[in-house]
């Protein structure tokens, strides 16, 4: 491939919870805990995990919507966590984002034309009539006609709005787009349209995607590699097919087993795990999955599991492998 675009290393982010004077000790919510991942040019990395596992926070940290507590995000060789002013703007011109909710990710008070051309305007990449032209071009790319330019977002359907969101993300020709659950608010048939469109655009323009989703089937469809998050940490990374065939982490296995397969012939018990995802405020010691893990061992409750490479590109963070590998 054409080389590395993004490398995230040991990224951490904790949010303070309440706290302050007269309220006792400040508590921290560890939303992202030592996350590392990397992305090649033109590649799609899937990031899955249940809600609250910190997927969006990772995306936001990369985009500098949030400032990281520690760790680094090297984008095209530059550490964006430390950038300021004009340099940050320059880096931003190369990164974009598409959000989950097509309703709230478009400013209801702006026309579609203005929305789509906004990045160009802010970055100073175009002016006046050119803004409109390039917005129209970008809209055409996502399959919307120029008549949309003067309409307001609420006049469109969910799928169309998501296309507008894509057009906005792509108008400044970024190298990298964070897709934060871009289809989870859409119907399957519309989702199919959007997924196809994304694939198309990627093939033509060579962007890299960080595709965040909680839907394994979708991630499986779009990504070459997948990272699985649980309670703020990545528990497994693997090439897509590897992950589905030989999931290395018990959580991944449970996750896969819980997905309702759209085939009445393959009915199975979906209740693999008990309980909900616990809150990331007071993380359990040892392996963060052990309270729900069907395969937990005594050591899981106290010792942090190591990161084990199961095969090239297939990483899991679990004691099970540790034992297997070191008898």
């Amino acid at each position: 491939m054409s080389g590395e675009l993004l490398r995230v290393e040991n990224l951490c982010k904790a949010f303070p919870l309440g706290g302050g004077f007269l309220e006792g000790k400040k508590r921290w919510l560890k939303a992202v805990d030592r996350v590392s991942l990397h992305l090649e040019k033109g590649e799609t990395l899937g990031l899955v995990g249940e809600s609250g596992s910190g997927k969006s926070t990772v995306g936001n940290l990369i985009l500098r919507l949030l400032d990281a507590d520690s760790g680094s995000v090297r984008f095209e060789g530059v550490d964006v966590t430390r950038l300021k002013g004009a340099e940050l703007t320059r880096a931003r011109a190369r990164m974009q984002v598409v959000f989950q909710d097509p309703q709230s990710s478009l400013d209801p008070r702006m026309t579609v034309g203005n929305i789509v051309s906004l990045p160009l305007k802010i970055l100073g990449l175009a002016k006046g009539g050119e803004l409109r032209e390039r917005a129209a071009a970008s809209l055409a790319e996502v399959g919307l006609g120029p008549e949309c330019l003067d309409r307001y977002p609420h006049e469109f359907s969910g799928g169309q709005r998501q296309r507008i969101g894509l057009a906005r993300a792509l108008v400044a020709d970024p190298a990298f787009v964070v897709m934060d659950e871009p289809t989870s608010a859409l119907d399957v048939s519309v989702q199919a349209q959007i997924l196809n469109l994304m694939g198309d655009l990627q093939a033509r323009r060579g962007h890299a995607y960080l595709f965040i989703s909680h839907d394994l089937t979708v991630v499986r469809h779009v990504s070459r590699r997948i990272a699985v998050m649980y309670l703020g940490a990545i528990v497994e990374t693997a090439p897509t097919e590897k992950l589905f065939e030989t999931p290395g982490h018990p959580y991944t296995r449970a996750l896969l087993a819980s997905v309702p397969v759209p085939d009445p012939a393959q009915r199975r018990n979906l209740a693999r795990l008990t309980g909900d995802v616990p809150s990331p405020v007071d993380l359990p010691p040892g392996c963060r999955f052990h309270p729900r893990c069907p395969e937990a061992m005594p050591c899981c409750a106290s010792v942090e599991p190591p990161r084990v490479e199961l095969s090239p590109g297939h990483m899991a963070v679990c004691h099970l492998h540790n034992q297997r590998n070191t008898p």
Partner: protein
Amino acid sequence: MRILAYIIKRVLAAIPVLIGVSVLTFIISHAIPGDPARIIVGPKASKEAVETIRREHGLDRPLPVQYVRYMKGLVQGDLGQSIRNHRPVTKDLADFFPATLELTLASLVLCLAVGIPLGILAAVRRNRLADHVARVFSVIGVSTPVFWLGLMLLLLFYRNLGWLPGSGRVDITSSPPAAVTGLYVIDAVLARDWALLREVLSHLILPAFCLSYVYLAVITRIVRSSMIAVLGQDYITTAKANGLSTARVIFKHAFKNSLIPTVTIAGLSLGELLGGAILTETIFAWPGMGKYVVDSINSLDFPAIMGFTLLASTAYVVINLAVDVLYAFLNPRIRY
């Protein structure tokens, strides 16, 4: 315990607000052109007499010095002496505040007793006749000049019909009840003087109605809109789907939720009622803060003005604190 810590925190947070209020009052009241020393000695007095008084009251000092001196006293619970009558301002406030408070509380009760049912009615019968009638009725209140209403009420109920007594807190020939709280209703009850209680209550009716009518629309509107919002919520549908009766759905499920914004507004209104009582007090010869403060402004009685504003602001802060605590009781989601 958490709630106690919360209250302490809120009280502490109120201090800068009160300091801000005192600074602002101080600046504004001293910006009113005029010479208080002159007002004390009377217009015909000589310049020397004026100078003496000015020195005596420290009015010749620079403003910041005067302010610091005032605040020093304040910390010790001393609001200074009224320039007009040489009485401690605290005494004056103690004399006049209970009347205003009684009137205000009575109005609030009236306001809620009428406004809430009206708001519910309007919400439940949204966009139907009852809704329009309820809203117009309440909005007439906001837009009716208070003294017009007050005088008309007096004319009708006192002069023409003779159903209710005239102005004042008690009949002209009656003595007020022995002062315990200063709230005559309570004092009359404490004294077990039921005839007097009747008298006091009948004197309260007109001014309380007059004052509350102004805020009726505010309450009605907020109850209506929060009720409409609540009625659209999923849990209301759930309650209906579970076979609960309409009355239960409205009065139990919807009402408690719609109370949450209502208490906030009611708290704010109570604050405004306190300040808005001036005109009502004048018309009904109600011996409250209203006339006192207008007179204070007119005679540049700075300590009295400061005392009043600080008291009113404190009342406002206390009310808001009470509202917040109430809010926490109503809304279990609130965490401190």
